[in-house]
Every structure is written in structure tokens, then in C-alpha cells.
């Protein structure tokens, strides 16, 4: 049978090209630079998918999942765009800009920008005891008592996770996210 032979060869070609493109795609991505906060906004959206909150974090089964920004908003709208119309589980995603620290307890994700460096202690104290995923970008954020610290290394975004703080906040972080983290702090073993 001649035809299947030809098809098999064609398929092999397709696969080879496919592999090449797949290998090429990330490289093409690497060369182009993108706004730091556009990327960080996308990270925040993903973090929400890899974290499990305790039931008491929400009023009821239909309450939205709220991303809060404290201090100056470095995203300039990119976070709203990143979560617009999306769900995590059955929960709609919302973005709130906090005016004061009293509202921290209503947030599920709290982003603390580098502008908050001087108030880091107070911001983290505001989140302590509540099931809030704190994400920051100041140096050593995860060591200083935050849950996930974002950092930029060689122009690429990396993150550190403090599982101890996460445990205190009753958050369960998926092992897949832990595998991708640059550093995991507070692991028992």
C-alpha cells in the first residue's frame, strides 16, 4: 500500500515541524520585553488558581474572590484586565483598591507594591490571622512574613513562597506552584 506510507512520512514531517515550532515559541517569547506589571498581573491571576482558601474566607458559596491592592497601584489597570470576566471555581474575580488596612480581612489576595516598603510591617500585620494570600515585590518579601514574593531576575519574573506563613493563613498551595517557585521557605523537611 503506497498511500499510507506517504501519509506516514507527511505526518513525520508535521511532527518535526511542530516540535521545532514548539521549541521556537518560548524563545520568541524570551526576546520580547513586556511590561513588568502586565506579567505580574497574570501571575496574580494564576496564583489564585493554585491556592485553596478555607471556607471561612468567603461569606458564602457565591461570594467573589477579591484581589486587593494596597498603596499606589503599579498595575495601572492591568490587573483588572487580567481577571476581567474570569472565574476561579464558581467564584467571580474582582479587584479592589484599599483605602485603609481595616478592609484587608475582606480580601483573598492582597498585593503589596514596592511603594509600600515602609509600611510592610503594618500591611502584613493587617493580614495576619486572616486567610489572605499576601503577594509582594519588596526584597525578601517571603522571608519578611509574606506568602508569595515576586522578584525580577535577569529580566524575568520569579517567585518565592513561604509555606509557613501560608499555613498560618490556612491556605493550601498546590505542589505544582511550589515546584515552580525559586525558593520555598519554611518547609518542615
Amino acid at each position, binding site marked *: 500500500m503506497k*498511500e*499510507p506510507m506517504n*501519509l*506516514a512520512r*507527511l*505526518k513525520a514531517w*508535521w*511532527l518535526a515541524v*511542530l516540535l521545532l*515550532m514548539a521549541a*521556537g515559541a*518560548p*524563545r*520568541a*517569547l*524570551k*526576546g*520580547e*520585553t*513586556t*511590561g*513588568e*506589571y*502586565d*506579567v505580574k*498581573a*497574570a*501571575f496574580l*491571576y*494564576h496564583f489564585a488558581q*493554585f491556592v485553596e482558601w478555607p471556607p471561612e474566607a468567603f461569606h458564602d458559596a457565591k461570594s467573589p474572590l477579591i484581589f486587593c491592592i494596597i*498603596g*499606589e497601584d*503599579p498595575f*495601572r489597570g492591568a490587573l483588572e*484586565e*487580567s*481577571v476581567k470576566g*474570569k472565574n476561579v471555581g464558581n467564584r467571580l474575580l474582582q479587584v479592589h483598591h484599599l483605602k485603609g488596612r481595616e478592609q484587608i480581612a475582606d480580601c483573598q489576595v492582597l498585593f503589596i*507594591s*514596592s*511603594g509600600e516598603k*515602609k509600611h*510592610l*510591617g*503594618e500591611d*502584613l500585620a493587617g493580614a495576619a490571622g486572616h486567610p489572605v494570600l499576601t503577594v509582594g515585590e*519588596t526584597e*525578601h518579601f517571603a*522571608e*519578611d*512574613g509574606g506568602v508569595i514574593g515576586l522578584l*525580577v*531576575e*535577569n*529580566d*524575568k*519574573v520569579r517567585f518565592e513562597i513561604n509555606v509557613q506563613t501560608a499555613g498560618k493563613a490556612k491556605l493550601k498551595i498546590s505542589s505544582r*506552584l511550589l515546584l*515552580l517557585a525559586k525558593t520555598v521557605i519554611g518547609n518542615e523537611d
Partner: protein
Amino acid sequence: MRHLAQHFSYRSPGPAATGILKRACVVVLLALSMNMFASAQAPPADLSKLSVEDLMNIEVSSVSKKEQKISQAAAAIFVITKEDISRSGALNIPDLLRMVPGLNVAQINANTWAISSRGFNGEFSDELLVLLDGRSVYIPTTSGVFWDVLDIPLEDLERIEVIRGPGGATWGANAVNGVINIITKKASATLGGMVVAGGGNQTQEFGTVQYGAKIGQNTDYRVFSKYLDEDHQPGLNAPDGGDGWHALRAGFRSDSQLSVSDDLTFTGDVYSAREGDITNSIQSVASPTLQETFAATNLDGGYLQADWNHRYAGGSDSTLQVSFDRYRRNDVLRETRNTLNIDFEDHFSWGGHQDIVWGLGYRFSSSTTDGDLSFSLNPPDLDTQLFSGFVQDEFALIPTRLSLTAGMKVEHNYYTGFGVMPTARLAWTPHEHQMVWAAVSRALETPSSTDTAENLTLSGFVPPVGPPVLVRIVGNPAFQNERHTAYEFGYRTQLLKRLSLDLATYYNSGHQLPTTEPEASFIETDPPPVHLVLPLQNENAMYGETHGVEIFASWKATDRWTITPGYTYEGIHLHVDPGSQDTQSVPAAEGSSPRQWARVDSHLTVVHSLAWDASANFVGRLASGAVPSYTRVDTQLTWRRGEHVSVSIVGQNLVRDEHLEFSSTADEGPSNVVKRSAYAKLTWIFTRP
């Protein structure tokens, strides 16, 4: 079994299955190629659709971070980022600084620059403080900076922060008109090997070889070596200005994480250089005429620095920095200097609304010199100590809206004893994209060895009757601090998402500025023959004011094209005290910096792998020495292959070949002109993890 079956059908599919597979392949391929196309054209519109792994591969520009930091500082600050550095085409730090509005950068010759901020420029411009990773590279002999031996690899720079205006409250004396803070990359950012090689008609050969790696879990390091061979520039009246030079340098940096809250960094380098210089000087008492002499000068030196940072829970931290620095310059003064520096700094928040930084510092500096008739120091050898302490408190008057920073530094120096430098800064952020700031500060410029101890023979003659006569500037052991009071006001705004504007204005009043005043003549027997000296002594008899405005905008016209225009205007009015007989210092200082300056930079990413950068820089005329205005055009074309290889072709100073940028004053050698130049550069980065 299902798996096996799948494998089997995959290997020899029936005709129908093949068709489906083929169609699926086409769809996936199309999707992938579109994805690739999109990423090459512009970032994907919705990044949240990418996986975390893909997100981790995206290169980000930290422009917004820079803007954010700048938008919070209540000072006229400009940050040269590592992207600015790679896109400038500059091969040395002075050429990089040309892009900063409010800085006066003038090349005197191939190995010497005059750099100042807001007026008072000179080879030993003494009102600008330069720090390398927090360590002052200030030279107590002249209060200036030897820019030639600051030729660290530009690829290792993280950023350069330039603050115009007084930084005295934090950084100490001699930060009268600005601070330049050069910050190198952490060793973790330069893992792997790097080779940079290139050459051209002015910088004839240059190269850097670097390797960075990890030791164990917690330590990163890099070691590098750099070589530079610079051709001479043409003299004003001769084809060879005699200023060619070459330099070899080797250095390292290591960063260790001792514990979760302790970091230890070591940096250091050693260098050896040889550079030519033509001077006009008096060589003999018997025939005291100015003679042009060429000398090749050997320079060598190095430093070692340790920084220990400890962080406390809650965001406060302390840093201890200890450094030792040594240099020898075999020029007319033949100076050897050893300096030990210890600085401690502590930062904490207090009571919710206050952020406090305080520190203590000590410096011991020991210098030996061996000058000659034309220039020497008296005493030739000197050990000096400097003690300092500062405190700065930033408190939020209205949280996130209005904050006040009050600070003060107290220093005790060898010459003038205690000096106090206070500052108060108010920052108002009416809207997250707007900020208004105002500041009033007092700064001191403390005396240098030349101010207090120099013997600089300017000229001489043999009268028809009597002994030879020498005219000499002599140091004044009672030389005073220059005192400056600066009033500043600034405004920053993000007008549109892609357009930001930064404006700074200042009024600076200065007192006890330097002059030279004639003193009673005296007879000197050494060196023979017996001669008469007409001394002009350094005094502090000038006062006056400078004022100006500095505007800078950044416009991201498209995702691939950024245009950054800047303009500065500067006015300076000086006077001498009644009784002063100095007629030179006022016009020399007033005319040392241009009244107007303008610049525009364009950075265009033509296609993904090709970038084109260009800048045009207008610098107004200098009245002192009648240096005409000029426009300098530089351009760079960079081709990049992946992350590992890039090739650049750079043209510098393309419009006006052989233009003068500065004019020598009495105590500085003749200035040369700057020629049109071009070079090519290859950068190869390998085995980067």
C-alpha cells in the same frame, strides 16, 4: 491496554484516523505559529491565558518600576537603567552621564573629564559626590573624581542614580550639587560566562572576560578582567594631543546569604593604567617660562569592600560597610593614598507613620606626595580623619498623600571641624499619577588638600634688575567651608499611560566660595637661585546664586519606540566681597557651564532582533575660555541573536568632528578636541544557567 492501542493506532493509523490527526496538527501548528507571530509583534493581549511556565519565560522591562521609584522621591532624581546603558552606545561612565538633564559633562581629553551638576564645572569639580556601591570614590586631595580609573565593565552595572541638588543630609559634605550612585549587579544576575570584544578608531581595542558561578547553595560570585586601549585625541593646535592611554583591570563580586536575614557581599578590583598628558608648567627658576611637556603617567590601585546587611522582622534592616582603597598616581604630584572607610546604617519604622534612617561613619585617609616646582603640597604628607553621623525621618502627615522628610548630617573634618547639614523635604501626591515636591537644604563643601596646602606656580619672569619672579597660588590652612543653601521645587506626572513628565527647578545661594587674593611677596631660596614669589592665596571671598530649570519627558510612542527629550536652563550670578582683588574667579566660574542644554534620545526596536538607537545633544557655549556651542550626535545599531550573542556598530560625535568641549583653566592642562569616532562590539554570553 488503551495506551497500547493508542500507540498502535498512532503507528499505523487507518485512513480516517490519519485525516483527523493531520487536521489536528494543522490546527495546533496554526495556533502555535500565531502565538509566535503575536509574541514577535507585540506581547499577547491576554497574558493570563499563558501558563505560569510561559510567564516565567517572558522578559519584562522594569521601566514602570523605575518610574514608580522615581515618582516617590522628593528630589530631582534621574535613574540610568541597565537598558539605558546597553542602548546608549557609551563605553565609559562619563559618556553615559551625558543623558542626564542637569549634569554638565565635558571631555577635556581622552582620559580626563569635567563633570558637575548645576554649574561650577572643572576637572576637579568638587561639588559632586560619586559613590560606587555606596563607597565614596571622592579624592580628598582635590575633592574631585578620577573618572579614568572608574572604568568598570558597563555590562555589570545595575543602574546609576543621579540626584541633582544637595544630598548632604544623607551622603555628607561635598554632595553640594549632586550625588551619583553607581550600583553594580548582584553576582546572581551575572552567572555564566561573558566575552565582550570590540574596537574602533578612538577606543582602539576593548574587551571584558567574565565568569560567574555558584559556590554551594548560598554564594554567587563573578570574576572579570577588562582591557581598554584608547587612542589620543587631537590637540587644539597639534594632530596628537598626547593623551592616549590604556588600562587593565581585574575584579570580583561575591554575594552570600548567611541566613534568611543576613547577606554578605564582597567586592574589589585592582587596576594598572598608563596615560599620556601634556601640561604647561614652569620647570626651572632660572628661566621661569611656561613649557609644554609631555609625560606618560603610571596609575595603579585597587579596593576591597565588604557589606553586611541584616534584616529584622517587620521590614527594618542594618548595613555595615567596611572598605579599603589604595591608589598611586605617578603624575606631577606622585601621590600614594590609602583610605579606610567604615559606615553603619540602620533603618526602621516607628509608630506606624514614621520611617527613620540613621547612620555613623568614619574615614581615615593617609596620603604621601612628592611634587615639583610647578605643583606640590605643603605639607607633602598628611593623615586625615572624618567622623560623621546622620538621621533622617520621613513621616506621613496624611497617609499616602502628604509626607515630610527631615534630616540632618553632622560631620567633623580635619580642616574646619564640625559642620551641620540639615534638609527638609515635602512630598504631596494629590493623585497616584502626580507628585509635587519642595525642599530646602543646607550643604557644605569642605576644604581639600589643594585648597589648604597647594603650591601651584602659574607663571614667572626675569626682570631686567633683580632676582627671578614666580607667580604662585598658595594654599590657605584657614580655608573655610563653602556654604550653600538650596531651595528646590519639582513636579512629576504621568500625563498619559505612555507619556511622563518630570520638572525640577532650583535656586541655590552660595557663600564663602573660592577666590585667590594677592598676599605680600617674599623671598625664597629653595630651590635655587634665590627668587621672589608673588603669592595668590586661596580665600573664600565670592558669593552668589544659581537658578535653573530641568525638564525631562519620556514618551513611549509605540511598543517598540521610545523618545525621551530633555531641556535645561541655568543662570549663575557671582560677586566678590568688598575688598577682594580677584577679577578671575567670577568669570571663570560663571562661564564654566552652559546656559542651555537640550537632548533627545530615540530607541527603536526595528524588528525583534534589530534595535536602532540615536541621540542628539546640544550643549551651549562656555563663556570661560570661549568654548563654542556644539551638537553631538551618537547612534547605535544592535543585532541580537537570541539571548547569547549581540553585535553593535556605534558612531559617536557624528556631526562636529574635532570640537572643543572644555577649556583649560590655570591649574589644568590644555584641553584637546573630541574627534568623530566609530566602533564595533561583540557580546557573547555563554553557559548562563
